[in-house]
């Protein structure tokens, strides 16, 4: 019988992934990278949902994961479309340059 991987490992991985996502979101300037960082955070959360679901023998965690994935997919579709339009209009993907809504 193979010993199970401890729960804490999954959670630590999730936390590391989340932290990487946050760092990417905060410090990168490229919109695509920022977008990928957000996806990374979502997936980090998904991982912890699945982990808890496995730990508590509950199906709710899986359900949430699916919800998150659906939302993330929708978001990716809309988001990428917006990014594409921004790039077409502005020829830049630097997030600090896209501030015309302010002021």
């Amino acid at each position, binding site marked *: 019988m193979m010993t199970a991987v401890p729960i804490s490992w999954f959670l630590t991985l999730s936390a590391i992934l989340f932290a990487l996502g*946050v760092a990417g*979101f*905060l410090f990168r300037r490229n919109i695509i990278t920022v977008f990928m960082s957000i996806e990374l955070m979502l997936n980090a959360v998904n991982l912890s949902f699945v982990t808890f679901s496995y730990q508590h023998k509950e199906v709710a965690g899986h359900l949430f994961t699916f919800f998150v994935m659906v939302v993330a997919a929708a978001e990716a579709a809309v988001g990428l479309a917006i990014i594409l339009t921004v790039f077409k209009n502005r020829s830049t993907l630097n*997030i600090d340059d896209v*501030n015309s*809504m*302010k002021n």
Partner: protein
Amino acid sequence: MQLWLIPTFPLAGFLINGIFGRRFSKSLVNTVAIGSVLLSFLWVLKTVLALGDLNTAHLEHYFTWIQSGVPGGNHYINIGCDFAIDRLTVVMLFVVTGIGSLIHIYSIGYMAHEHGPNFGGYYRFFAYLNLFMFFMLVLVLGASYLLLFVGWEGVGLCSYLLIGFYFDKKFATTAGNKAFIVNRIGDFGFSLAMFYIFINFGSLDFDKVFHQAASAPEWVLTTIGLLLMVGACGKSAQIPLYIWLPDAMAGPTPVSALIHAATMVTAGVYMTARSWVIYTHAPGAMDVIAIVGIATAFMAATIGLAQTDIKKVFAYSTVSQLGYMFVGVGSGAFSAGVYHLMTHAFFKALLFLGAGSVIHALSGEQDMRNMGGLRKKIPITFWTMCCAWVAISGIPPFSGFFSKDAILLAAYQHSPAIYWIGVLTAGLTAFYVSRAMFMTFFGAYRGKAHPHESPAVMWVPLAILAALSLFGGMLFKIPEFLKASFPAEAEVENPMLMYISVAAGLSGIAIAYIMYLAKTGMADSLARTFSAPYRLIYNKYFVDEIYDATVVNPILGGSRIVLWKGIDSGVIDGLANGIASRCRDVGGILRLLQSGSIRSYASWILFGGVVLIVAMGLFGGLPR
């Protein structure tokens, strides 16, 4: 007896002329205005004949005007629209409608060439006069203090409108405002008196109030009496509220005659006489009235000595004569006060109308220094005014003599000091009226205009008034007529007093004759010798200036600087705006957080999360 018809006729006249008068011809306006007043006069006559001796009041109730509370309950107020008529009312009714009719007729001639502002003021003038008649009759007929007050305020309104008749002239409208506002100060006292009467007697009806008044405590009656006197001082131009009356001469002269000499200004005397039950039980208030009256009589007479505007002389004379009436009622001789009210209405209306005739003849000139020698040029006016002259100077057996003598006799019993000042005032009165007559009608003509005699429509009323001035005192023995209305007065004969006052009047005329006819330079040299007192009376004791400096300007300045700019804009708005701008300051700082950059928000979220986790670690888990 349909008493309500008496004031309703003039009211109808006012409404018809006021609403449609602009499209009417002058003769139609005349018909409506004079017709309504004459109808009212005739109705008075008919009523008086029908009602007989009128030893008790005849009361008519029409409708409830103001009602509050339930009958018998606490503070039940029930003010009816009630008219009453008794002997005192009858005297007033005849004076008002009789002299009112004469002055209306006279006005046809006087106002004939009137092109006031606003498409000619002709119809407006008569509409206002009719409205005045309405309110004056309500004042006289009203059977409660509140109804009297209705007329009281209403005649004040008409006085305001008619003083400011030439409303494109600033001095006229200012004089109108002054009259209304000073009267309001008097009405302040009157209304407080009414409140106090109601608190103590639970009613404002004359019969109910007077029924209880005799048994009320003296201090209550004194308070009421003094408060009522404040109102009377305003309306009847007594110290310290007399200042409006001389300015009121800015109105057309018939107005001065009707409102500011014969009728409205005597309302205070009427009201005091009406309240005799209160006053006889409040000797303190009576003393105050007598003192105010004699002080006013004397002071106004002295001012009258030095005026050069013919209407101003008669205006101060009116103030002075009203002072006499106050002395009369203040000395307990109510009937003598009313007697003088009536004779004064005759001769002072005549003096004013005569002055109006002079002014009319000289096309608007009012300064006596530009008159003189008019005796030959306008003889009818001269001879009629002479009748008023002898009447006001107290020469027997003309009307002024009887009433003035009755007042002085009563004053002597009350206080000899008042009597002697009254005699001195009588001399002064004779002097300034004689002065006015000499300056106007004698000597050489000093003016430029071409005098012309007034039309018959003007001199016929003058003639009637002249007859009344001469014989009215003998014909209408008011003290006997009103004997039953007022408390019995001790019958005293003191011929000595009579001789003294007649002598005072004659010497006043004689001195004026010497100063203004015999030795023409004497008046000027006297004025130079006594220049300080002369300037004082010439400038009317500077009372207007003192009031401006002590009352008017502080109120205006204080309101503008302290209340409006200071408290309103400064303190209250400052506080409100201060709170608002402190909020904005705080917002300005907090606003820095809202940078609009998603990443800075995310950093804050991260920072907050970290702080929370650290805090949970330190304090051991979630707060419970």
